[in-house]
Structures are given as C-alpha cells and as structure tokens.
C-alpha cells in the first residue's frame, strides 16, 4: 500500500466522521424531494382519469353500472388507521422501546396486507377487465399502481422489522424507519384521493 493511499484513507475516514451528522438530514431531505416527485406520477394518472371520465360517452362497459363501495370503504378505513399505527410505532422507537415498536410495526404490516388482500378479492369479483374500455383501463391502472406502492411499503416495513432485531441498529438514528413511515403516509394520502375519484365520484 502506498503512502498516498494510507493518507487518502485517513482523510476519507475523518471526512466521513465530519459528515455523518449531516448525512441523515440529507437523506431525509432527499427522500421528501423524491416523494414529491413521485406524487407527480399519480397526479398525472389522476388528471388522465378525470379527463377520460369527463369526455368518454360510454364510461362504464356494458353491464357495469358502477362500483361496489362497501368493502372498499372498509379497506380504506383499515389503510387510513394504519397510518396512525405506524406513527405510534415510530414514537415507541423514539422512546427506545423496541418491543412496542416491533409490535405496532407488525400491526401496520398486517393492516397493509389486509388492504392488499381486500384489493385482490375485489379485483377477482369484478365483471370487467383492464381491456374493458377506458374505465377498465384506468381503474386497474390506478388501483394497481397504488397497490404496488402498498406492497413496497409493506416490504419496507418488513425490512425495518428484521433490522430492529440487530442489536444496536438504531443507536445512531433511524432514518430508515422515518422514511418507511413517511412513505406509508404518502401511500395513504394517495389512496384517499384515489378513493374519492374512483369510488365516491361515480
């Protein structure tokens, strides 16, 4: 190893130390920027949906008169509540109470999975497909794209749960958990808009 390299590594180490406390702040800032950007995808899908819905003469495919709202409403309630549950989990972590954190995170995951399951059941029972005109296409596009995000959220939570088992993992901050929770709130807000557009506005 050359002298130069040793010096370089030395410097890198000290730099890293110096920047450590900034790094978490950067990550949070960056993640929020990312979510804002991500929301534009949904925004464009929503805009598309509104335009299609207001301009298409035969909106619903033959034999479809509207969407059942009862089960989706239950689903919605579960998803919205889970936002509070993950918040509680985060509080527990903040207070260094790992077991409470794990418990509530697990609860969030179960609620998220319930939502996905409910969505799957709904999809199976529907009398139309993604090829059933613009209604079918946008319905599956929006719910499917959102569902993918829910799935991602649950997977992130799983990772956080597993990581909480590593001793001392959250001693130097827990940006990962914050991000997961932020993401989950984001997925939630999107769903509220989506639910209003698709189920309420019929």
């Amino acid at each position, binding site marked *: 190893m050359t002298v130069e390299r040793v010096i370089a590594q030395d*410097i890198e180490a000290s730099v890293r130390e110096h920047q450590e406390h900034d790094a978490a702040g950067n990550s949070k800032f960056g993640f929020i920027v990312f979510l804002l950007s991500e929301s534009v995808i949904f925004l464009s899908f929503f805009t598309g949906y509104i335009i299609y819905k207001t301009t298409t003469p035969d909106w619903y495919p033959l034999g479809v008169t509207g969407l059942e709202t009862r089960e989706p409403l239950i689903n919605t309630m579960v998803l919205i509540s889970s936002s509070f549950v993950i918040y509680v989990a985060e509080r527990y972590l903040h207070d260094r109470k790992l077991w409470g954190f794990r418990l509530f995170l697990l609860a969030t995951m179960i609620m998220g999975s319930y939502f996905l399951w409910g969505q799957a059941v709904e999809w199976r029972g529907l009398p139309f497909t993604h090829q059933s005109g613009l209604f079918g296409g946008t319905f599956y596009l929006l719910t499917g794209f959102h569902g993918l995000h829910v799935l991602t959220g649950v997977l992130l939570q799983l990772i956080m749960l597993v990581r909480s088992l590593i001793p001392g993992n959250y001693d130097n901050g827990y940006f990962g958990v914050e991000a997961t929770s932020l993401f989950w709130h984001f997925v939630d807000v999107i769903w509220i808009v989506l639910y209003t557009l698709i189920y309420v506005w019929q």
Partner: protein
Amino acid sequence: MTNLSLDPPISIVRGQPQPGAPDNWRRFFTFSTDHKVIGVQYIVTAFVFFLIGGILSMIMRGELITPEADLVDRTVYNALFTMHGSIMLFMWTFPVLVGLGNYLVPLMIGARDMAFPRLNAVSFWMIPVVGILMLASFLVPGGPSQSGWWAYPPVSLQNPTGNLINGQVLWILAVAISGVSSILGAVNFVTTIFRMRAPGMTWFRTPAFVWAVLAAQLIQLYGLPALTGGAVMLLLDLTLGTSFFAPERGGNPILYQHFFWFYSHPAVYVMVLPVFGIYSEILPVHARKPLFGYRVIAASSLLITVISAFVWVHHMFASATPGWMRMFFMVTTMLVAVPSGIKVFGWVATIWGGKIRFTTPMLFALGGISNWVFAGITGIFLGSVPIDIHVNNTYFVVGHFHYVLYGAIVMGIYAGIYHWFPKMTGRMYYEGLGKLHFALTYIGTALTFLPMHPAGLMGMPRRVASYDLEFAYWNVIASIGGFLLGLSTLPFLLNMVSSWIRGERVGNNPWRAYGLEWLTASPPSVENYEETPIVISGPYGYGGNKPLVEHAPNPDLTDFPESFTPQEQAS
C-alpha cells in the same frame, strides 16, 4: 499590473496518483462513488453515444442529398431519425450535462462529494443499460422504434411484427430507465445544492452554474414523472391491450401528446440551462470581468423553471387544440424570451469593456451564444400560432432546434469541456486543434442547419425520406454541411486523447479564475478539499481585490502555463 494577490495556493494532499499512472485509469471502469470519476464516466459514455447518434444522422443526410428514397428503405429511414433523436437527447445531451454537473457542482460549492455517492453511481450505471437497450433494438425482428422520438400513438401502437418484444417496447423501457436514472440524479443534485454548500456560500454567493443546474434538476423532478406516467400507459396499450391512447378502442391519442410535452418541453430547458451556466462561468474568466447582473442571471434560471411548466402546448398548436389553448400557450411561450433576454444581455454586458482572450472555450461560448440568440428568435417565431401553423412539422422546426441543440448546447458543452479540461486532467489541451475544431463546428452548424429554415418555409415536412424536387437545393447544402460537422469532431477527439496522455502539465489554476474549483489541485484529490473552504465573497471577483475564501489566496499567477504566456494569447 494585476489586482490578484500572489499568495501560494493551499497545499493539497494528493489522495490519488496523477491520471495516466497505471493503476489510475481503471477506476473509470469501476463502480466508483467519487463524483469526479462518475462525472468523467458520464461524459465519456455520452460522447460515445454522440458519435453513434451522429453517424445515424450522417446516413440520414446521405439519404436526403437526393430527393428519392434510394439509399435506405423507408422503414430504415424512419428508424434512423427516431434513434438519432432519442440517442442524441437521452444518451448524449442529458448524460453529458449530468456528467459536467456531477464533476463541477460539488467542487464549486466546496463539498466533498454529492449528497448520495452510491445513488450517484447507480444513476450512472443505468445509462449504459439504456444505451444497450436502444442499440439492441436494431437487432430485434421488425427493427427499432420507427415512430419518432415522440412515439406518438397510434403509430407507436402499430406493431407490424406482432411480437411482444419489439423495437417500440425496448424504446419505452429504455426511456423509462433513463427517466428513473434522471430522477434519482435530480434528487441527488437538489439535496447536494440545498444542503452541502460550503460555510459562507449563501445563495447569492453560489456560482451561476450551480443555480442553473438546480433550476434544471427541479424541472426533472416535476416533469419526468408525467412522462413516466404516459410511458407506462403507452406500454400497457402496446402489450396488455388497454385502450388509453388507442383510438380504435376508444382511447384518446391527444392525451398522450399532453403527457409527452408536459415533460419534453421543459426538458429542452433541462438541457439548455446548464449550458447557460457554462457560459456564465466562462465569459467572466476569459473577459476578466465579473458576470454582469449576476443576481438576475442566477434568478432568471428559476424563472425559466417555472414558466417552462406552462408552455408545453406550443408543440401541439396544429393538433387538436382549441383556439383558447392556442392563444394562452402562445403568450406563455413568448414570455420565455424575458428571462432568456436577461441572460443574453447580461453576457453581452459582461464582455463589454473587458479584457477578452480568444481561448478555445471562450470561442465556443461566444459562438454558442450567437447561435442561441438566433435560435431563440426562431423559437419566438414558432411561438406565434399563425406562423407555427404554417411551419409546424417542417424543416423550419428542425432548423430551430438544431440551432439550439447543436449550435448552442453542443457548442456550450465543448466550451465547458475545454475550460475545465485542465482541472480534470491537470493538463492543457492544444489551442491550435481547439481553434480548428471551433472553426469547423461553427461553419458546419451554419451550413447544415441554416438551409433548413428556407426549406421549411417552402413547406418541406420533416421526417420524410423522399421529397419534392423544389427542396433539393437546400438539402444538398445541408448534407454537405452535415458531413463537415461530422469531420469537425475529429480534431476534438484527437485533441482530447493526445492532451490527456501527453499534454503540457499546468498548475491548479491556469486561467487565473475565481471559483472554489480552482483553489484545489488539478486533478482534485478524492476528497476535493483538505479542509472545507469558508466562502467570504461573491463568485466573480475579477478586477476587485476581495479574496474568495478565508485563509486562502485568490487565483494565483504562479501556475500560468508556458504555452499560455500572454504573447500567444493575444494572437
């Protein structure tokens, strides 16, 4: 004689050997997280694709030198301009500018790296994947996408081979990956610029280039997701039989155009803004005067970011847009002239009364600005609805945008590469070759793209492999010019390769320039700065006596390279 102090530069510990040392060049082929390595990776990769895109355009110009479609089949011609446009934009202009930004932004703001170095590397390595997908589409049955770089449905949904894997699908995938890479890059840039500026570097002490990069990357953040949304829907139409944009299934092809241009119009400013930044950095150095009206120039970049979100329909004046939309977007489009004008006038005032030296980067910057004014004015022509209704989709438009894309942007990129070449390599390029390169490029641009304007006014549509005889005259000139442009890249290549290997070694600041990046070694060490600089004044202190940073000197004269003695300069 000089207003600059002569203190020695901060001594820098070399964290890495000089480039050219045997264990050194290999790092450019690794998953490095050093922003400087990534910057060079971007630039070099992008340049390879510039050559590929350029070769495609050479074949196109070969086809167009005669009125008949006789060199290549019509399907091939359509694939050529589609891939030429796509490669030039997604594989050359975007990546090369991200590369320059990557290299320069952390240095200019006194940061040790980008905010997320690993993410940065991931963003870069997606680019070769995009390139491979694009090139691979030449090999699949049915050939590459043939629907133009807009991929407008229904043409883009027509799938002659019926295969699931076809050129159009690959194209959409490539564009989507390139989009993900750009969004991640944008998050990185925005975070870096917001949070990692050196102590004392307030917003109005931040170099104009950094402002411009910020403005451009903000556009990526709000615009790209819309394109991604549209691309996802197009892909679903193409593969799963949904009907979003397919008219025969009740879909609305015009909506795609809105999705597409909502991003792709602002995208042109993503490309031009960093180049504005390059001009703003280069002119003060080589005219030895502060950037005139620096604050408004910096702020006007953000103004462009905002306005450019509301002009996209000017690409659709002739499609099914109702009158009120045409009028509204005409006004917003023309408003872009205001922030653009602020910049142009500021640049002219910067060189006015300065001590101008015609170095290669300066020549390219000056040539680029003059082309930009021309192209901007033809842009205003296009913004006028009645005029656009005549010239839309003609060669007038092709002339307009090549004047920007080649005349202003590619020339600006060249300017930037020459200007920071000594910083990146520690060596100087060859002036003679540089000036030859400039002359060929400038003449070639005019010869190739000027004749496209009259051809367009006469009514020659774009994207045609054959055309009526009346247009032959202008096309022959354009083709000859095009070949000249192709040749013009050769002195550049020669210059870069040979100067990097054996160019004259110069000091850290051969231009005696202000700016944090010039206070560190050339090439900078891995960590950029031994200690974080503390900025105490604005970025363009020429002629004044204010030091830029605490405990450190102004640009020093001791490093002035032999070949750059003033005698040769003035010639």
